[in-house]
């Protein structure tokens, strides 16, 4: 059931190939010209992409564990995203490994171990790298198993493959809760090792799920337009994804504010430092824009029911949220690694185009390598007739 290559998908492949190549070439040049900025861009891009594929696996696992039937019809989309974990995972580990010294706990004086023995132990560079590798390997294994079982379920496998995937997904949910908390703290929060926030992992989790939902919306609508998911991905599926997107946009805002307000209220210098740099001077407009594009606009646009059923509106909001996710991560990484002024130029564009090109190319290759609908899933019929 491999979809035939239409002229539009051929053009898209060429376009993605060109953007990926040009972006990569520019990044390679930039690595010598502006290494700090290139590294920051690579960290944002690889973290962005690894959380997209991890979020997709989380979406699949949640559907399995909750016995959700509605999302089965377009499950090949998050499955193809999750199949990219070996690439995106390797990328983020490589980026972190290159600059392990930046994560080193500092200052490492002779007596610093007394007060900060835990930080001393936790932020040991080799230990950070070990954790990164272990977590990413775990995700890859679960992605291979869950996606593999779903893809190669025979027409007469009945509920057997469903049952194995429900069990695997339940274990994966525990694994991802622990591992994602660790690495989101390691890779992003530890860039400023003196600063800490107990809301960090859930803040990163909310952004991950929101961006994943937006990416699923964009990709499903693209595939429907190409004809592959025509009549399979319906406006009712779009509506439900829109509700989730609205919900997670509000959840992101809720968590963002919870983190901000706790720190604002207690007003302890070692906690406020992170926000001081981001709410003063030229970073302030980015700080405010982050809230507007991540929550205010999606919230107001997605509130009415017709908006969530309208492919045009949903496409625009989903793309806006994908941009917003980049701004959110940019605001986490750049004030520390690049400096006191926001920068946006050739290197940022290079990293973004390279990321989009690579992800798109690999995604469509993965998507084309399996049937476009999980035809042996017992819930498929329910999903095709989903009404909401």
């Amino acid at each position: 059931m491999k979809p035939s290559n239409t002229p539009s998908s051929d053009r898209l492949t060429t376009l993605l190939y060109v953007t990926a190549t040009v972006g990569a070439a520019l990044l390679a040049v930039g690595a010598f010209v502006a290494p700090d900025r290139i590294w920051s861009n690579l960290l944002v891009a690889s973290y962005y992409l690894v959380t997209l594929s991890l979020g997709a696996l989380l979406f699949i696992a949640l559907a399995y564990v909750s016995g959700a039937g509605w999302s089965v019809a377009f499950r090949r989309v998050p499955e193809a995203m999750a199949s990219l974990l070996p690439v995106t995972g390797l990328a983020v580990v490589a980026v972190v490994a290159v600059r392990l010294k930046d994560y080193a706990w500092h200052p490492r004086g002779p007596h610093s171990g007394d007060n900060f023995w835990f930080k001393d132990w936790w932020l040991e560079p080799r230990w950070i790298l070990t954790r990164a590798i272990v977590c990413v390997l775990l995700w890859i294994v679960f992605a291979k198993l869950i996606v593999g079982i779903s893809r190669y379920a025979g027409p007469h496998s009945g509920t057997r493959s469903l049952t194995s995937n429900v069990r695997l997904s339940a274990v994966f949910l525990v694994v991802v809760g622990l591992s994602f908390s660790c690495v989101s703290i390691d890779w992003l929060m530890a860039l400023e090792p003196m600063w800490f926030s107990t809301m960090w992992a859930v803040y990163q989790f909310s952004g991950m799920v929101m961006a994943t939902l937006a990416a699923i919306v964009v990709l499903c609508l693209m595939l429907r337009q190409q004809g592959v998911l025509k009549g399979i991905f319906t406006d009712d599926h779009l509506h439900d994804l829109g509700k989730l997107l609205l919900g997670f946009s509000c959840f992101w805002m809720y968590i963002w504010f919870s983190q901000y307000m706790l720190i604002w209220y207690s007003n302890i210098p070692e906690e406020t430092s992170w926000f001081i740099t981001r709410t003063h001077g030229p970073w302030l407009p980015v700080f405010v824009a982050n809230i507007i594009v991540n929550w205010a606009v999606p919230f107001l646009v997605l509130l009415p029911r017709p908006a969530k059923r309208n492919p045009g509106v949903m496409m625009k909001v989903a793309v806006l949220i994908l941009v917003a996710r980049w701004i959110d991560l940019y605001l986490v990484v750049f004030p520390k690694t690049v400096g006191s002024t926001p920068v946006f130029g050739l290197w940022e564009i290079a990293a973004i185009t390279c990321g989009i090109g690579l992800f798109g190319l690999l995604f469509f290759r993965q998507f084309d390598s399996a049937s476009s609908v999980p035809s042996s899933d017992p819930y498929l019929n329910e999903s095709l007739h989903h009404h909401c």
Partner: protein
Amino acid sequence: MNERQLLVTFDHADDLLSAVETARRERWSIVDVFTPYAVHGLDRAMGLRPSRLTWVCFICGAIGGLGMLWFQHWVAAIAWPINVGGKPWNSLPADVPVAFEMMILLAAFGSVFALLAVSRLYPGKKAVMPSGEITDDRFVMVIRQDNAAFDADAARDLFEQAGAVDVRERVTDEEL
């Protein structure tokens, strides 16, 4: 006021849906449709307008949220300024949680009470049902015979062909 009604009973939701479409095509006025559970697509088949409850919810939520922001600002910065931890009197972050809670409270109460008022429900109200079967396993469509041109026998034939298990006429002054 007494009115003549036609009570059409079905065993299957699919028959009900197609009968609702038939009734709409014939321009008979449907009083209401009673089902033991929510039947998907029924609102579309009946041609119901989208609920206006969302607007009640939105407006109540906006009143709660903005009203509480204003009230806290008035209390903390205008009427009785108190220095809390050296923070400015008009501190927005401190006002957000209460405004948020009030927004949800008013939106929820507004929706619930608007629903009760519009459907004329109140505690202890006696249920008016066209038939007891609708709480068990049957679907009932109630049609109002609102003009002389309505041919009850023709309608009965049409519905029985469409799978109705029972078609009954009644004259009632009950408001369903």
